[in-house]
């Protein structure tokens, strides 16, 4: 005998129909349950995999930090030995050469530091880079402390590669201004200006020193400093370097940038 499935059912169904309906419902439910179980197992697998990846990532981050730590230790060893040598060296020429080398190391360390702190970032913010760089550079290159640096930097970012070139260029130009502009530890000022004019960046290093020697020819330089600058400007920044005497010495670099990004 059949049981009405709905109160208002107009028709009675047979027992065998009912059994087969129930059987189908049971079958559907069991397949639903087994698919749910399957999904749950898969979710569990995914979450276990996620956890594994997360701990692997954490391990990688730790290892990267450890590598940065080691790099900083190596940089400390080299900087320490060079700057200790500089302090104990009697010859002024040797001292200056060592000072310049320490300055170069300070620049490279500043780049390393910025890239280490922002591992995901492929670009360097110029104001931050110069902020990181300028004090250490001035301290190393002008131990007497008579020279002050004034910076006016437009917001701009550089790729890690161009940023490295930029930092080295800056170290050379500042070293140059201190060494040639203010001989014998004279006091003075260096003004650094970085501006962004349409798609060109203009970098100007201007000192209040004695000006350039009349025979300076940027095309044929013997010293490492300016020849390194010329090479980096041309090859890495794809830009132009010029120099003039206007009050003190003025070095100007122009190089192409995109929308505030090179």
């Amino acid at each position, binding site marked *: 005998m059949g049981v009405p499935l709905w109160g208002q059912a107009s028709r009675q169904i047979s027992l065998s129909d009912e059994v087969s309906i129930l059987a189908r419902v049971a079958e559907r439910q069991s397949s639903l349950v087994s698919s749910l179980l399957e999904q749950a197992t898969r979710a569990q697998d995914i979450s276990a995999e996620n956890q594994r990846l997360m701990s692997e990532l954490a391990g990688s981050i730790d290892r990267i930090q450890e590598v940065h730590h080691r790099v*900083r*230790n190596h940089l400390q060893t080299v900087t*320490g030995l060079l700057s*200790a040598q500089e302090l104990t060296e009697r010859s002024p020429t040797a001292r200056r050469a060592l000072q310049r080398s320490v300055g170069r190391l300070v620049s490279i360390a500043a780049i390393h530091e910025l890239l280490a702190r922002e591992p995901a970032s492929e670009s360097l913010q110029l104001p931050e880079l110069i902020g990181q760089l300028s004090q250490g550079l001035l301290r190393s290159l002008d131990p007497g402390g008579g020279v002050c640096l004034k910076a006016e930097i437009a917001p701009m970012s550089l790729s890690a590669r161009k940023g490295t070139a930029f930092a080295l260029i800056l170290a050379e130009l500042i070293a140059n201004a201190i060494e040639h502009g203010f001989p014998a530890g004279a006091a003075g000022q260096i003004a650094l200006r970085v501006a962004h004019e349409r798609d060109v960046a203009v970098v100007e290093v201007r000192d209040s020193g004695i000006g350039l020697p009349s025979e300076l020819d940027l095309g044929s330089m013997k010293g490492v400093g300016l020849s390194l600058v010329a090479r980096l400007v041309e090859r890495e920044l794809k830009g132009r370097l010029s120099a003039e005497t206007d009050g003190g010495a003025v070095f100007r670099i122009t190089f192409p940038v995109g929308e505030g990004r090179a």
Partner: protein
Amino acid sequence: MNQGLRVVLAEDEPAVAAAVGEQLRALGHRLVGEAETGEEAVRMAAEQRPDVIVMDIRMPDCDGIEAARRIAESCPAPVVFLTGHFEEELVAGAVASGGLAYLLKPAASAQLGAALELAHTRFHEMKDMKEHIARLNRALEARKLVARAKGILMQRYGLTEQEAHRRMQQEASRSNVKLAELAHSILAAEAVVAQSSGAGRPARAAGGKEAS
């Protein structure tokens, strides 16, 4: 310039320790101890009583921050951290441990020298200030004692403040003690009297009843 400082260097990496040691020497300072662990740094700080400690942070045993904390407790000396780590919690820990400078490697001699000098000078300024505060506190305590002692004399013997003060000064100079010491004796005597009269009061009350 604070040249010729006696420095303890704590650094577990031998090459770095050698280079920094040379820097310190070139700056005119004297290395009086080289520690490779935090534990050693604490021990050397106690043994050598250095003018400055240059401390790495990540070291075996106990790290530089923990070592600095223990040094601040047991035998205070200015600590300059020199480290390859720049995680925020480390900087916060270094500040909390009482460190006076935090240099990130690499530090050229100019930076290292400036940090040492600053730390050494600040440490002594702080020490002087602490001693000054302690002296002021002692003076303040002495004044409070004298004021309370005067109060007692005024109350017990109906003296004016000036009279109480004059008598205390006379007595202090006669018996060759400091005014604060005399005040202390007066307060002690008052305490004894107050105690005995406090204990005696119920007895007197009881005696009164008997008498009546």
